[in-house]
Each structure stands twice: as structure tokens, then as C-alpha cells.
């Protein structure tokens, strides 16, 4: 396949393409979902194909096929070139790519236990134990346990001479218990809501979550939430736990810094960004404690890889430094438009998708101290965690988040449990109110395997390293 794709690159160069790249991708996905002890979903899907991107007359064309014969790959290349030529006839096509080094390399995720060799029986035993544990609580009506495993093998070549082979393995899982009493229903999840936590690791990561050990507690907390007081409506101090803070970073930072989105290419679908290019280097995004980086090199981060889908090496870039907005997620096409070079964030979710600027691991750097110390330092407020719902405007400015659980903080101690906690804010005001971030011992990279963007739609696997943090004067609860 490598020789075939290299020949195809030579063919496209001879045909006058300014640039071209080809990706041969083979993906394997397994999804297991057990509900109340019964296997509800057991799906295995495999997909392999080649996608070719061509830049001609300053415009892109992309074609792809699962037929991998030399004739078919040649046809795909010719199609991509023809599409690029057609694209160039519309509008002002002036795409110029930045310069990048030629790379010949390979990369593989570090895996101790291949998730695809773990017997199905073993996985189902774990999921069954989880359901048993959660349903020990009488009020738990729905106990769900799930695991997903992924393997992606990629070969990338381009007309500049790069050749990169990568094997990315990902795994993880989660549990959730829904308790019902009368008209009231409450859900509690572990380690995170919406199917759990994921990493670029093997099944050893899924085992490390120790899902069965947390099942009884998860069920019990769901039932306790039924009787908990409603989160009051007020402006107060909030301490946000890691899982919710990961989503806060994702929605209010990760998305608005995608430079293609800033330039308006997602306006018809995912939205735009309030962080327009005039704000680079001048927008006070958050307090001086807030430092956010994009880092595709984090070991085990779900957004980690060796090279992006343009052949640019994984790297770490500053996004927010001491509260000041200093960087975007960029591509070889978008970066030169602001006088910069790509920082390696172009990712496609399959052979049949064109790469788009996507988050890698967007991490809030740790501060100091433990969560216990932060709570002890807080006179009056709410500790809130585990996302239940999210809503944010299309510019990523005004947001509302609902969470599974909260606890009142009074005089430095956690008090009564609160249900249906919600909080709202305006992104820079919110991050500007951050006055404490806990330290490395509390820091964890959460993996979100379902970030949507693009048409046709794509789902990216991204990571967010965070440690719990405190924010002042935040509106919580629902005004009645």
C-alpha cells in the first residue's frame, strides 16, 4: 500500500497538483453496553479505505474509497484533482500551506493489554458485576455499564515526501445508575457521565477504572439524590470537580480556539467564535491563574498521537498564558493567514473524511494544593461535578451547565447534598473569576470520545487534563 500511495503522489505531482496527501486508514471499533444485567449492545465494526486530498489552483478536493486496487486508488486521485479544479472556479481560492519538515517515522500507542484480545466473556463479567452492584440499591431502576475499544491504523504520505505510520489504540468505559421514585428521577455516573472515561491505552486502562468497585456507591448516590434538596438560586462561589471542569474547558475554550471556526467555516453548523483574530495576544480570557495548553504529546491522553493528519508532529502549544489568550488550534492552511505555522491539530475520524481542525488534549494546567485543602479554604459555596447537560451559544460565550450532583460548602466543610445543580456564565467573566486551581495530585486527563464537527459529520476523540478549581460570584440554580 505504501508504494501504491507514493506512486499516486508522484502521479498527482506530474498532473500539476500544488500539494496532495493520502491516508490509508483501517479502523476497528467495539461497543458493549449492558443494561440491568442484559447485554443491550454488542457491536463490532471494521472499516478500511483510502482518502486523498489535493490542493490545486489554491483550492481543495477530496475523494475516498474503500476499494484499494491500484485502479481504484488512481481513480480516487483523479477524482480528488478534478474536485479541486472545480472548487477553484468558485470564489477566491487562495490557499497557501505553511512549510513543514518532511517526516519519515512511525508511532504507536503504548499498550499493555490489547483490548481486542480480551475475551468477550471477561468484559461481560465486568459489566455484569457493575449492574449487580448498582441494582443493590432498591430505587435504581436503570443500571447501565459500558465499554468501548478502538484501534486505528494509519499510513500517511504526501507529495512533499513524508511517510508516517501510526497505530492508535483507545479504551475505556463507565457506569451509570438512574434511581426513580414517583415523578423524581436522578442519575449518578462513574467515572464520568456519557459513557465514562477513555484514554489512548489498552484494556489496562479500562481495568484501572475498577468499575465494579464503584457500582454500589454509584447506585446509592443516585438514590440519595432523590431525597436531596434542590440547588438554590443565587450567586455564589463554586468549586468544580474534574469531570465537569473538563467539559467546561471543552465547550468554552476548546471550540472557540479552532481557527477554521474563527474564520467562519463552521458558521452554518457548529458555529463561530467570540475569540476573533484581533483578540490574539490581547484578550484577557481568564484570571492570571489560568493557563491552558493544547498538548497532543500527553501520554495516554485521548487526544494524543504522533502526527496529525497533515503529517505535522504532535506538539504542545500555549493557548492561554497567565489568563491572556495567546494561541489557536491551527492547520497548515489557516496558520499562515495569521502569520504562524500549524501546531498539528488536523484530524479526520476516518479514511472517508477530510481532516478538520480538532482539539487534541486541551489542558488547564494544575495549580497548588489538594481538593480537600481548597474546600477547607472556602467559607461558603457549592462543590459541583459530573455533567448532565450543556448549553452554549454558537459563539461560545454564554453557557449553562447542569450537573449530576453538588454539595454545599459551609465554613470549609462539605455539607448537604444538592440535586439538579446548574450554573451559568459568560466565558471570559467566568474564567476571570477563577481564584484557585488545585495541584498535580488532583490532575487527570479526561477522555471525551464524541466531539462532533463538520459536514459530513465527524466525531473526534479528545482529552482534557484538569484539576478541580474555584470560581467566584457564579450564578447557580434556577430562578423560580
Amino acid at each position: 500500500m505504501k508504494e501504491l500511495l507514493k506512486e499516486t503522489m508522484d502521479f498527482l505531482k506530474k498532473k500539476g497538483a500544488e500539494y496532495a496527501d493520502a491516508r490509508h486508514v483501517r479502523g476497528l471499533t467495539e461497543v458493549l453496553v449492558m443494561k440491568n444485567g442484559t447485554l443491550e449492545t454488542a457491536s463490532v465494526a471494521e472499516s478500511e479505505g483510502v482518502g486523498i486530498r489535493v490542493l490545486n489552483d489554491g483550492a481543495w478536493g477530496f475523494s475516498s474509497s474503500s476499494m484499494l486496487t491500484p485502479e481504484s486508488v488512481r481513480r480516487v486521485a483523479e477524482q480528488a484533482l478534478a474536485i479541486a479544479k472545480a472548487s477553484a472556479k468558485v470564489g477566491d481560492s487562495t490557499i497557501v500551506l505553511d512549510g513543514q519538515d518532511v517526516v519519515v517515522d512511525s508511532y504507536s500507542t503504548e499498550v499493555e493489554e490489547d483490548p481486542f484480545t480480551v475475551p468477550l466473556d471477561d468484559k461481560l463479567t465486568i459489566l455484569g458485576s457493575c449492574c449487580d452492584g448498582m441494582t443493590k440499591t432498591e430505587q435504581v431502576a436503570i443500571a447501565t455499564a459500558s465499554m468501548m475499544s478502538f484501534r486505528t491504523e494509519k499510513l500517511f504520505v504526501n507529495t512533499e515526501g513524508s511517510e508516517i505510520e501510526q497505530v492508535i489504540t483507545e479504551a475505556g468505559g463507565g457506569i451509570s445508575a438512574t434511581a426513580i421514585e414517583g415523578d423524581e428521577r436522578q442519575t449518578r455516573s462513574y467515572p464520568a457521565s456519557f459513557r465514562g472515561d477513555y484514554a489512548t491505552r489498552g484494556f489496562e486502562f479500562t481495568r484501572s477504572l475498577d468499575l465494579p468497585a464503584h457500582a454500589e456507591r454509584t447506585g446509592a448516590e443516585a438514590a440519595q439524590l432523590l431525597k436531596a434538596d434542590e440547588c438554590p438560586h443565587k450567586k455564589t462561589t463554586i468549586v468544580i470537580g474534574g469531570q465537569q471542569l473538563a467539559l467546561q474547558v471543552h465547550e468554552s475554550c476548546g471550540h472557540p480556539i479552532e481557527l477554521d471556526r474563527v474564520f467562519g467555516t463552521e458558521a452554518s453548523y457548529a458555529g463561530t467564535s467570540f475569540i476573533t483574530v484581533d483578540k490574539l495576544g490581547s484578550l484577557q480570557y481568564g484570571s492570571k491563574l489560568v493557563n491552558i495548553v493544547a498538548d497532543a504529546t500527553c501520554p495516554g491522553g485521548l487526544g494524543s498521537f504522533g502526527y496529525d493528519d497533515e503529517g505535522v508532529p504532535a506538539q504542545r502549544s500555549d493557548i492561554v498564558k497567565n489568563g491572556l489568550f495567546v494561541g489557536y488550534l491551527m492547520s497548515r492552511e489557516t496558520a499562515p493567514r495569521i502569520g504562524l505555522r500549524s501546531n498539528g491539530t488536523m484530524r479526520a475520524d476516518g479514511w472517508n473524511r477530510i481532516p478538520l481542525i480538532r482539539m487534541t488534549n486541551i489542558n488547564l494546567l494544575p495549580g497548588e494544593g489538594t481538593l480537600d485543602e481548597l474546600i477547607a479554604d472556602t467559607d461558603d459555596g457549592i462543590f459541583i461535578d459530573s455533567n448532565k447537560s450543556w448549553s452554549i451559544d454558537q459563539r461560545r460565550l454564554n453557557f449553562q451547565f447542569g450537573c449530576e450532583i453538588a454539595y454545599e460548602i459551609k465554613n470549609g466543610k462539605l455539607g448537604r447534598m444538592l440535586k439538579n445543580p446548574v450554573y451559568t456564565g459568560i466565558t471570559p467573566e467566568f474564567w476571570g473569576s477563577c481564584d484557585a486551581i488545585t495541584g498535580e495530585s488532583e490532575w487527570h486527563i479526561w477522555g471525551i470520545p464524541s466531539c462532533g464537527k463538520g459536514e459530513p459529520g465527524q466525531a473526534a476523540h479528545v482529552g482534557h487534563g484538569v484539576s478541580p478549581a474555584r470560581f467566584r460570584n457564579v450564578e447557580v440554580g434556577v430562578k423560580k
Partner: protein
Amino acid sequence: MRSTKDLTALLEGALQRSPADETELVARGYDSALTRFAGSTIHQNVHEDDTSVIVRVVVGKRIGVVSTNRLDETSVDEAVTRAIEIAKNSPEEPDFPGLPKADAAPSVESYSAQSAA
């Protein structure tokens, strides 16, 4: 896309070799293109074609489903094997009446030159 003749031969071979109580193989192919505009410029102009096989097997009253677009004999046989493993670990569906019996499927021509113009 692959020819109907080649696909039929591939699927019939896999059916013969399948050890499941019942086996169904459905091949689906598509050829799709999309042009995306922003700021009065085409920024994504994309095409894809793909053919995949969805394997459904029945073991007793248990069902397993696997899909693959790797359309060679070995890969389709592996998909059947995986589907059987899933079926064996799945709950019984007591009301499942079995896979549909053979019937002639009408050929459908949905292309309209008038609307395509």
C-alpha cells in the same frame, strides 16, 4: 463500487461456510459527494464511495451483528465468527421468528433525470 456479481459470489461463499443456525449477509454500497461553502467560497468539496457487509447470525434465539467493509473471504468469515461470539453472549429473544425467508426483491430505479438536471 463492486459489481453485484462479485459481491454475490463473496456473500454466497460466506453463507456456505457459516456454522451459525441462520446467517444473513447484507451488502450496502454508496457513492456520495458533498460541497460545503463558507464565505462564498467552497472550503470542503468531498467525495466517498464505500461498500460494506452487515453480518447477522442467529444461534438458537440469540442474535449477533458485525459489520465490515473489508470484502475479502477471510475478513467476511472473521466477521461471521465475531458475530457468532456476540450471539452466544447475547440474551435470547424468545419472540424472534427467525430470519426472513427467501423472496424476490423488486429492483428499484430511483434516479430521475428531470430532478437531477
